[in-house]
């Protein structure tokens, strides 16, 4: 009995002391495989993503939306594919559903890294689909002030955004015609990796404006709470949410591929958690029986 217990604890001890680099290498391989050979694991559409889509699609053409880009390159892996899918929908599919009519966008960033994401995801799509700057959309660049700026924006948009990022006066931008406060905005969409959605919930949703977002996974539990409270019309959480949205608009892309990699890598993490816990229990059992 004693010999067997030594053998058993020795095995678990070896497993416990395994070089962490081996575990990381296996993780990297687990992530890479689905990119090279997609698994095609089905992704059912969840309620928040479905509501996100339904709300946007129900907005009357010509309505003005605030597009808040408060994420940066560090969230590129999570928000990038979803943002691309959302832009695809807004610039191509929404007009198809509404006889060619478009929504209007007021775009800004309360994160100093936002302009990078604007240039990577929003602007190329507007250019590709022939949207006219100043008429269909206007970009105001980085706006300092964080929550203070978001609160001020709700009350008086022209005072916070007197000119766009190119230096054009707000009065010269057709996209800004009749836009004075939250009352003139149909909905807000935040590309969020820094928590700006919470400020919009506090200062815009509380006034009845619909708020939705494309967010990183770490914020999901918090935003689920706002969604359940109906303060948010929906959200696209990380690349998994992006995959759902891609399926909804009928264009599986980057997010679907990333979701496959997540499934396999999560499997590896789960195996590690289970093995670690078994090891802990075995160790406890043997140390107890020795006594």
């Amino acid at each position, binding site marked *: 009995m004693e010999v067997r217990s030594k053998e058993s604890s020795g095995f678990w001890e070896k497993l416990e002391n395994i070089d962490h680099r081996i575990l*990381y290498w296996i993780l990297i391989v687990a992530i890479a495989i689905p990119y090279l050979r997609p698994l095609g694991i089905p992704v059912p559409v969840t309620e928040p993503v479905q509501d996100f889509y339904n709300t946007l699609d129900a907005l009357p053409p010509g309505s003005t939306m605030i597009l808040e880009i408060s994420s940066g390159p560090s969230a590129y892996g999570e928000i990038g594919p979803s943002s691309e899918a959302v832009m695809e929908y807004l610039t191509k599919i929404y007009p198809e559903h509404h006889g060619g009519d478009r929504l209007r966008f007021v775009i800004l960033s309360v994160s*100093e890294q936002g302009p990078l994401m604007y240039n990577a995801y929003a602007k190329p799509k507007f250019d590709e689909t022939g949207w006219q700057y100043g008429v269909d959309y206007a970009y105001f660049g980085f706006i300092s002030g964080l929550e*203070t700026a978001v609160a001020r924006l709700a009350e008086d948009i022209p005072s916070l955004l007197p000119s766009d990022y190119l230096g054009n006066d707000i009065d010269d931008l057709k996209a800004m015609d009749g836009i004075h406060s939250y009352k003139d905005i149909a909905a807000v969409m935040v590309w969020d990796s820094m928590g700006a959605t919470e400020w919009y919930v506090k200062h815009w949703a509380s006034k009845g404006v619909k708020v939705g977002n494309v967010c990183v996974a*770490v914020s999901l*539990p918090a935003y689920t709470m706002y969604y359940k409270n109906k303060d948010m019309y929906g959200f696209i959480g990380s690349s998994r949410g992006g995959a759902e949205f891609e399926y909804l608009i009928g264009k599986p892309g980057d997010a679907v591929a990333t979701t496959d990699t997540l499934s396999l890598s999560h499997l590896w993490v789960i195996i590690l958690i289970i093995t670690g816990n078994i090891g802990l229990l075995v160790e406890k059992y043997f140390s107890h029986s020795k006594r």
Partner: protein
Amino acid sequence: MMVDYLALWRAMLIIGVFSYALWKESPYFRFCEHAFLGSALGYTLVITIKTINTTAVFPLVSEAKIIYVIPIILGIVLFLRYSNSTKWISRWPIALIIGVGTALGMRGVLYAYIISQVKATATASFMTDNALTNFNNIISVLTTILVLLFFTFTVLKGEKEGSLMFQLRKISRLMIMLTLGAFFGSITMARLTLIAGQIKELLIAFGLLTS
């Protein structure tokens, strides 16, 4: 075949950063780390200077808005904290920033954290057409009550082991652990997604995957 030098440069940096976990700390890793920090700080500095120019200096100089002198002076005063003799003056703008921030934050907090939450919990329906929604709503209301109970120390002080309250608090602790587990799961997903994004860049850079 055209070589995408930018993608290759990106790939070299990604490999450098990964080398810390996959191999060991090395001068190559250090270079990549410093390059990342340097570029991020450089970018932030440029954006900050541009913002100060457009929001304060330009209106003051070109549009003669004298009122903008006040925030500029308050901003400069912040730097007085680097001298022990003038440190105290820098507390004034900090006090102003914290005061305005807190006041503004409080205005929204009542709605987002209290009124809306209480309303949603109190009006949660257990009789919708969707069985899963009903189940979720029951869990949500139960968790709210149990967790509130867990943190009600005064009423439960001196409760004996085996009593109903004691058992309920055990369930509450389980609920809290489940919630924290969900947070942990989300964080794991976030980190893995970040790695996945970089692996994809590598595969593209080395021609194993098309973008």
